[in-house]
């Protein structure tokens, strides 16, 4: 999770990931399009590959870099899953709160009934 974040935190890496949405591309084309030199692109691609955001496919004389969407989806889904966890807990808590409110009311009633009886 955090590795994916760290990898995407670098603006040029984010641009590479966005560019690869269009489909697999070779290093030189990525460099040309994003105006980065080849060592820079290679370095960024290595980081992206390490965190599983891109994959390499050899094709003829070329090595094509391809986007893997899964880590991105996981990152995106994580907050929503966490929200759902709390939402489920809070639904239970709602019921408990209703129950505690009822109990409080009953106690109040008993108290006032008790007072009436004493009179």
């Amino acid at each position: 999770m955090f590795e994916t974040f760290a990898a995407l935190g670098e603006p040029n890496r984010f641009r590479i990931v966005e560019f690869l949405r269009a489909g697999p591309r070779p290093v030189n084309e990525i460099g040309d399009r994003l105006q980065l030199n080849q060592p820079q692109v290679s370095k960024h691609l290595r980081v992206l590959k390490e965190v599983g955001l891109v994959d390499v496919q050899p094709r003829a004389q070329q090595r094509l870099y391809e986007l893997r969407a899964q880590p991105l989806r996981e990152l995106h889904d994580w907050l929503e899953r966490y929200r759902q966890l709390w939402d489920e807990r809070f639904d239970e808590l709602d019921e408990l709160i209703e129950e505690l409110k009822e109990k409080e009311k009953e106690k109040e009633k008993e108290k006032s009934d008790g007072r009436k009886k004493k009179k």
Partner: protein
Amino acid sequence: MDAKRKNDTATKNQTTVERKSDRELLITRMFNGPARIVFDAWTKAELVARWWAPKSRGVSVVSCNADVRVGGRWRYVLRHSGTEEIAFSGEYLEVKPHTRLAYTSIFEAFPDSPSTVAVTFEERDGKTLLVAHETYSSKEALDAAIATGMEGGMRETMDQLDELVASLL
């Protein structure tokens, strides 16, 4: 009573989770009850046991202990799918009944990355707005932040990521 419950469900209060920074999350929820009741439900061990386990994920509460005073400790143990036990524990840093609570929280499987949680209970017209502010200090979180120096850029990254993922789905 049944009709009332149905009505409550129809106007269910929204839970929001917001990323404040790379290590901070804000969980916000309104409850239809006074702060003293919400606070009790959040802190009294026997009450926590009633709501803390996400049942739909096959998780149940094994035990809850809470010594709710500054320096006191809490420990909740859950069981996953009938076998695996998962424990969370920590220490109370601040206890202001019905208004504010702060504690450390450790997922015992990863004891080196404790987080701190500050919870505020704000009562208005018999309802209570609960805000839980979680600050993480896990090694991974710190490493990632230090490695990229991206503290300021996190929100932007999340927004861009949302768009990116939307285009992939």
